[in-house]
């Protein structure tokens, strides 16, 4: 059985949220440089090299780790930008690099043997063979699991591999296998793999008339709202579409992931670390979510019952709809 405590890995889109996450009890924070090398390449987010070095110093002084995401795929002819980002992360004293591209993994494995390599969810490694390849070839120490596995499959997988796993527990939910989805570039020309963005804000438009509001992405209607109803962000895979004679949220309802009730189960399934999504989120949100999950994880480790865990997590629904996602078999 596992003996180490569960690691809580929290998002830090800015130096301010890094400090907030650390102070709220994050065991580790993950963040990226201010360019296309990371999968949350949004305006106003991310770190310069100096900010990263300062963030690492702050986190280390408070007993937290910093994991640097360099998890988009290197652009042809410019792979050095990704290699230099990895060099910079090492130079800043980061505890690990999270990468998906073979080019980046190969560079880190050859040149920075001292730093831990984590395999990004964008690599979508979900089998013992695939994970074994990344572990043996590049020395990957931890795999961030794609959000397509049931909790039973996570447990089976952990018994078959020799590296740590990290599982998403809260926040945005990709319904497609991560790193294998080109829906965003099909509609907008910008994609997670190439540009670090999905359904980018500059391609979003809202049109209001007497029937309500239409939310569009690059001109494609993603959803409609009746007058006065709360209007959502048109993320492509959470939209409403027509197929056959039905209109539905064909891919996924506009929900977010909350597997807080499964912390004990994920721990029993052999997961080393739990990940909270949300590098695009502000300081207040991060503080609140991290603090709550800190208490929940601590309560699980102290053997609290599910009623107590549910009570701790009760405030985290935000009024939005939530799902435990693929962890339950019926999601498929």
């Amino acid at each position: 059985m596992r003996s180490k405590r569960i690691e809580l890995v929290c998002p830090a889109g800015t130096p301010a949220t890094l400090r907030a996450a650390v102070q709220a009890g994050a065991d580790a924070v993950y963040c990226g440089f201010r360019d296309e090398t990371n999968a949350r390449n949004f305006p106003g987010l991310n770190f310069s090299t100096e900010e990263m070095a300062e963030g690492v110093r702050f986190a280390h002084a408070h007993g937290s780790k910093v994991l640097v995401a360099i998890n988009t795929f290197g652009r042809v002819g410019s792979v050095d930008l990704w290699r230099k980002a990895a060099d910079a992360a090492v130079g800043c004293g980061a505890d690990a690099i999270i990468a998906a591209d073979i080019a980046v993994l190969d560079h880190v494995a050859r040149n920075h043997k001292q730093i831990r390599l984590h395999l990004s969810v964008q690599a979508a490694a979900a089998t013992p063979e695939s994970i074994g390849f990344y572990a043996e070839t590049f020395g990957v120490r931890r795999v961030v699991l794609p959000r397509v596995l049931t909790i039973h499959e996570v447990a089976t997988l952990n018994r078959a591999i020799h590296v740590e796993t990290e599982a998403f527990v809260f926040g945005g939910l990709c319904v497609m296998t991560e790193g294998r989805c080109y829906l965003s570039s099909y509609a907008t020309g910008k994609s997670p793999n190439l540009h670090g963005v999905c359904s980018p804000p500059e391609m979003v438009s809202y049109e209001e008339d007497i029937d309500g509001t239409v939310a569009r992405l690059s001109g494609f209607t993603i959803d409609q709202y009746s007058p006065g109803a709360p209007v959502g962000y048109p993320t492509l895979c959470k939209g409403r579409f027509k197929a056959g004679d039905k209109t539905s949220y064909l891919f996924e309802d506009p929900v977010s992931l909350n597997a807080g009730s499964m912390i004990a189960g994920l721990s029993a399934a052999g997961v080393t670390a739990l990940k909270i999504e949300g590098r695009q989120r502000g300081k207040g949100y991060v503080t609140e979510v991290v603090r709550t999950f800190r208490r929940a994880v601590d309560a699980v480790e102290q053997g609290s019952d599910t009623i107590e865990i549910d009570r701790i997590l009760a405030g985290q629904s935000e009024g939005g709809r939530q799902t435990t996602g693929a962890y339950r078999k019926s999601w498929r």
Partner: protein
Amino acid sequence: MTVQKVALTLGPVFFHWSPARLADFYRRIGDEAPIDRVHVGEVVCGKRMPFSDPAWPDIIERLERAGKEVVISTLAAPATVRERRSVDDLSTDERLIEINDITALPSRAGRPFVTGPFLNVYNEAAAQFLIDRGARSICPPVELSLAAIGHMAQACQEADFEVFAFGRLPLAISGRCYHARHHGLHKDSCQFTCEKDPDGLAVDTLDDQEFLAINGVQTLSNQVQAFLPVPGELTACGVRRLRLSPQTADMVEVARTYRALLDGREDPQSARFLLSCLELPGVMVDGYAYGKPGWEATTSAPGWTQLRQERT
């Protein structure tokens, strides 16, 4: 430098076609289509394999007798023990295999293989890494532009680079089955409703704009990729293969049209007209090839030279 003829590849069938339909389809391809290489095998959903598996040996034999090079494609997202075992078994095949997930790489490394559009090969360093382990042909993800693929092709000349030229674009793969969800079912008891839609089920926006198509766990474009390069555009950037992806439209005619285009017997405009006469499941697009959103159609696409100048 010898000028190579650009070859035509028929990609794997993405859809749940019956064994009889598959046999008829490949019989015509073998007998009539000017295609050099033919992919066979299931790539989208392991649950379909018990239906199609018995059909493949005869199909392969017939294609090989017709002089086609046969490639065995493997699953894009193997997950179950049975799916993983199938990938492992196919990896030992003497023929070329198509790797669509890293799962197949450890058991295949060192022997020749091709990589399909589900494997993330985005740059020359990743391509070279795979070439060093046996990759002979690389068909990069569909969202990459011709300029990007050309850059890789010129940096890694040992491998054939292949552009996804025709067919609904494979845009995403999921653990969730959308055909099952659409019919109020779950993947594990799906009743194989995807077999009713041999080109995928069209997905429109609420205001009836054609947009996507679902095929079990796969999401495709509703529109049909029809990348029709001008003469010399491919050889200038070092691309040696075009991939045609099977739809129910007459693929023999599609292949003849592309062969005529590549041989200079038809120009892109007349090739586009010939394709438009077939029963395609959606309008023709080619935006990805030119670095634009995939759904866009560039009626007067700039040539490679101009693109390269713009990028540098």
